[in-house]
């Protein structure tokens, strides 16, 4: 996909399985929205093939639209329409719509049902957008940054809702800026950067890559002489030691289920009582930063 001379999405190949949550992750301008809008039939792919539920999203849009739900990033309502009116309107366009009252309640919209769209807060507009995407009981929903700008409590409610959708057999494709969101929700994560797919996999597969664990030990008394080196030997080949200061050290290397026991045994034999001990694995954020080389999303 190009906009003028800018290539927005290039050589992207990915497949989504039914009944799963797929997250498309990437920095601003990575091509997430373009990818979604191509699947929704708003844009015609300039090359390659797009099939959604086996249908061509542009040529067979009429067949596709009843089966999918789309949450746009923003906007999309008459400024004078009330939230419940908007939702009821969309419900009537579908054959077997979701119960509007239930949807309003689940998305904490019941309190602002009588409020005109222009006076809804940003978060309320977002939730109404999600409700509009779900009201037709779709098989597949595309949600573009579903929780952007929502407060944590409501974000959690939206996550639970998306998980419930999956449990009920709905396929969810979401774009997000929040790594936490992808890690928590997604069965598969696709990381886009500058229009290209840079990584794909389950959150576990992506974060396991390299299987490097980091152990940090902080103590109140300086380590006994030679003790850190002995721990490195105990942990085996490939372990790297960094003495951060006399009271803290960091080890990184391969880890398995015995790693923590080895560290504990070492503590006992050297009479070391850690003030804190942490064993961390890579999270999606580390992977993301490695792949895209970006400081932030």
């Amino acid at each position: 996909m190009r906009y003028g001379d800018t290539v927005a999405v290039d050589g992207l190949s990915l497949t989504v399985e039914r009944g799963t949550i797929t997250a498309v992750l990437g920095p601003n301008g990575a091509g997430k929205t373009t990818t979604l809008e191509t699947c929704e039939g708003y844009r015609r792919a300039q090359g390659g093939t797009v099939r959604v539920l086996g249908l061509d999203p542009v040529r067979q849009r009429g067949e596709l639209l009843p089966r999918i739900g789309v949450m746009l990033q923003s906007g999309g309502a008459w400024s004078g329409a009330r939230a419940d009116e908007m939702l009821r309107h969309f419900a009537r366009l579908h054959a077997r719509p979701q119960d509007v009252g239930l949807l309003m309640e689940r998305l904490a919209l019941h309190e602002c049902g009588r409020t005109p769209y222009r006076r809804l807060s940003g978060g309320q507009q977002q939730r109404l957008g999600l409700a509009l995407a779900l009201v037709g009981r779709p098989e597949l929903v595309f949600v573009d940054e579903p929780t952007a700008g929502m407060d944590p409590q409501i974000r959690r409610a939206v996550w639970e809702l998306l998980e419930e959708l999956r449990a009920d057999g709905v396929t969810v494709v979401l774009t997000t800026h929040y790594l936490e969101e992808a890690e928590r929700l997604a069965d598969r994560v696709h990381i886009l950067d500058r229009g290209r797919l840079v990584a794909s996999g389950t959150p576990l597969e992506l974060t396991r890559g390299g299987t490097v664990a980091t152990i940090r030990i902080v103590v109140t008394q300086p380590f006994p002489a030679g003790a850190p080196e002995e721990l490195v030997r105990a942990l085996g080949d490939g372990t790297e030691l960094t003495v951060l200061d006399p009271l803290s050290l960091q080890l990184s290397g391969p880890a398995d289920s015995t790693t923590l026991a080895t560290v504990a045994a070492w503590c006992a034999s050297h009479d070391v009582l850690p003030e804190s001990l942490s064993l961390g694995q890579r999270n999606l954020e580390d992977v993301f930063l490695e792949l895209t080389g970006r400081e932030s999303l």
Partner: protein
Amino acid sequence: MTAHTFAPAPGAAPVARQLLTQAGMEARLMLRNGEQLLLAVVIPVIVLVGSVRGVERVGFDLDGRPIDVLAPGVLALAVMSTAFTSLAIATGFERRYGVLKRLGTAPLSRATLLGGKVLALLLVEIFQFVVIGGVGLALGWSGPSGAGGLVLLVLAALAGTAAFASLGMLLAGSLRAEATLAAANLVYLLLLAGGAVILPASLYGGLGDVVRWLPSGALGEAVRSACDGALAVRDLLVLVAWAVAGSALTARTFKWE
């Protein structure tokens, strides 16, 4: 979690229901909006009352009683204000706010959406005709001549709606929302003043023949003839020609986003 609340059950509603839903929503929004209401009924009623008084004072050489000439003219104005100005402004802002984009995600075809818009215009026009016609009758208007006149009036209103709606959509689909707002109001004022809507084209002297080729003049003449029980073939054909030209151009130029 046991209820399977979200188990998929997709499907589009029957087209007839979609059409009525869409028309009802748009008509409601139009009549709820203060500025639109002003344009739809308040201004026409003021124009009707004011022009009846004014014409009596100025002593225009009208073909018949002033109210019998002016009431049909104001009905034509009402059609123009709704089908052109209101529609253009509403659609311009629908584009701006992404309403059309969002409606594009619902299983609503463009044909049904447009059909809903036209139906909404007709619903609003019925409301306008009842209010303006009522005021006219109260001012002594004799009304359309019999059932035949009423049928001809409906025919003229439909042709006028088609012509002005296609031009309104042309405007809304090519300009930005603010520019549409300005242009739609400006054109409305120009046609109100000099487009032979309210006053018959015959009062425009040599220009009369020119303004009858405008959609405003053609609509005004068609409505006036209809109320007299006459079929204004030429004026209706002019309106149809505008509708065809406007629709063809709109179909080529309309941008949904």
